[in-house]
């Protein structure tokens, strides 16, 4: 009896973390779902937004999509390295993921700056309000992911005893990536 209980307590941390992150992702889906749904409804109701949407730089966003997809790949490679007990590999790929996340934020910041210089601020109209809302919420999630990955990078330096967390962080990171896959066509490609 004690043994059974002990086993169920032992197997817990990785499993608990994974189940918890799926619930977190479910609630995040609803946050982005609410925002994206509002955007789609509002845009369907008022046809005049394509001129503003045409101001966005599709090429920068395409580069950013590529950057983010690559970062998902490096995140998966960090987990693969953990499964092979390869500490250097874990550190290398986590660092790459962080750098790619920062590159995404850098390009996003450049986009924001150029829009605002052109006079397209959040208060410049409904399209811009939604643009800043959606990309801003997403950028906040990228920042959170970068922070988490950085903590894992530091932890990997002192051994991989809690390396199962890489998979949990990876699930979150892939989710944030997928959100972008929705935002990219909805904002940049639908003129």
């Amino acid at each position: 009896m004690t043994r059974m209980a002990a086993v169920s307590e032992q197997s817990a941390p990785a499993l608990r973390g994974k189940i918890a992150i799926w619930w977190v992702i479910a609630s995040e889906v609803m946050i982005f779902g609410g925002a994206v749904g509002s955007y789609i409804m509002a845009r369907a109701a008022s046809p005049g937004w394509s001129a503003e949407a045409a101001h966005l730089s599709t090429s920068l966003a395409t580069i950013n999509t590529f950057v983010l997809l690559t970062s998902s790949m490096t995140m998966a490679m960090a987990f693969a390295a953990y499964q092979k007990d390869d500490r250097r590999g874990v550190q290398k790929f986590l660092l790459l993921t962080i750098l790619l996340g920062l590159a995404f934020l850098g390009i996003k910041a450049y986009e924001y700056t150029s829009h605002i210089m052109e006079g397209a601020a959040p208060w410049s109209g409904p399209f811009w309000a939604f643009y800043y809302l959606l990309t801003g919420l997403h950028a906040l999630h990228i920042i959170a992911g970068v922070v988490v990955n950085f903590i894992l990078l530091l932890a990997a330096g002192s051994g991989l005893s809690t390396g199962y967390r890489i998979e949990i962080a990876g699930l979150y990171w892939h989710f944030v990536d997928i959100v972008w896959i929705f935002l990219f066509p909805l904002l940049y490609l639908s003129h």
Partner: protein
Amino acid sequence: MSNPPRVAPSPSPVAQASHGERGFWRTFIFSTDHKTIAKQYLSLGIFMAFVGGYLAYVMRWQLAFPDTSIPGFGFVGPETYNAIVTNHGTIMVFFVAMPILLGSFGNFLIPLMIGARDMAFPRLNMLSFWILAVSALIILTTFFIPGGAASAGWTGYAPLSARAEYTGVNWGINLWLLAHALEFASFLMGGVNFLTTAITMRAPGMTFFRLPLVIWQLLTASVIFLLSVGPLIAAAVMLLMDRLLETSFFVPEGGGDPMLWEHLFWFFGHPEVYVILLPGLGAALEVLAVFSRKPIFGYRWIIYSTITTGVLSMIVWAHHMFVSGMDPRLVMPFSISTILISVPIALIIFSMILTLWKGSIRLTTPMLWALGFIVMFILGGLTGIVLGSAPANIQVHGTYFVVAHFHTVLLSVVIFGGFTGLYFWFPKMFGRMMNEPLGKLHFLLTLIFFNLTFFPMHAVGLAGMPRRIANPLQYEFLTAAQPLNVQITISAIGLIIAQLPFLINFAWSIVAGKKAEPNPWEAATLEWTAPSPPPHDNWGETIPTVYRGPYEYSPPGVREDYLPQDRALTARSAQEKR
């Protein structure tokens, strides 16, 4: 390099608990013990109930005797009245009902009833509570800042809430939104914690269909909270952007749509009702089985009904918006789904009544509250059907009839369901019994004043009195209803005073109540197998093993009239008992 274990060794909870003395701060303030955190939620809820009750008293006095000086407050102008209405609603829903029914009951019951030593993430649990405490502090602070507290209604309808100049309240509403954000963050973390705990940490033998019903209902409540609050979080960000960055998500002049806020608010707002309802319902179900000495009637059907209710609760929200000007084609589907949701709920109430049928009923204080719950909830639920059907709703929308409905139905959950649970689990929480005669007096007074307060509100509403007005006497046609308003106010004060026996009982019993046995009510669920109050790791050395469902009362062939979930029963021991 050392071989990393696939699964990291977790420090044994038993070893953690054996550290023993942890000092005042770690034991009482920044505790990771789910039972202490449950008590913290409870204390916060009771404290905020006083604040909310005080606001209700000020409101009621103003409505009965408009523009007189209110004892203990002073004069209330229309602006202050708006702030009081808003914060009464916000506080009662988010800082009383949720902390007590979901936060306190969930934290206390989930680990104890599933046979776990603590929550899956004890430190996250502590963080959830303290974020809620900060959030409550922010709401209280808004009363003392320049411009005053939020005054756009607890629903914060746009465009009224979307520009500071419309209400004259700037930081009051900004901070109100911030408090909501923190409250949601707190309960999101709490919900993730509840679900992960129940999925991964059940004791050996505790299958999902051996879980007590209150656990199913707490979990369903957590799921519908997790899945419904997202759009409102998005909407809160949008509203804050409207207020701070002058965007126009909800402001028509700038091309926005005020209806969008209503949709996003009620998409959360209606499931929220069930987030509060389900734990209260669960507490009543537990108590009914124990004090009827009978297995619950239709255990699995109650679970299926609970899940159905959860699903349906996500698609009824627009019944709050029948007169908002939304597309009229939406009215019929939402009216149908609203009336449909009464089917699973009625099934659960039916099961409650049939659990009583031919039981050996013990009229203890918790049982009285549970019976009161059934009666009052049916009364409140009936007007829900009235309001759910669009033709009737359009007539009484925005009147006191709506106020009467949701107070009867929601307070039957919070007051009757809440006290059912509190009187029932008090011995487990604090290790002492509460005083029965005082508890029964509390029940009787509350039942009487509850009905005297909220029943006449239906009549005032049907007489045409609108919600949220500071002075009914400014309308000629309402002078006839004014005596009723006075009577409601007097009864409401009575309802507040009726809580005194509870407070005395509660405080006195914690200090000097009779010491409680581990299982004073002869109940079969797992929490009663732990000592009262349970130690930090709940069961000492061995976690109980579960052999059967939670409601084995009066089984044939056993001498006592119940079988605890953790008792192994071989063929021989059953024979010996004969």
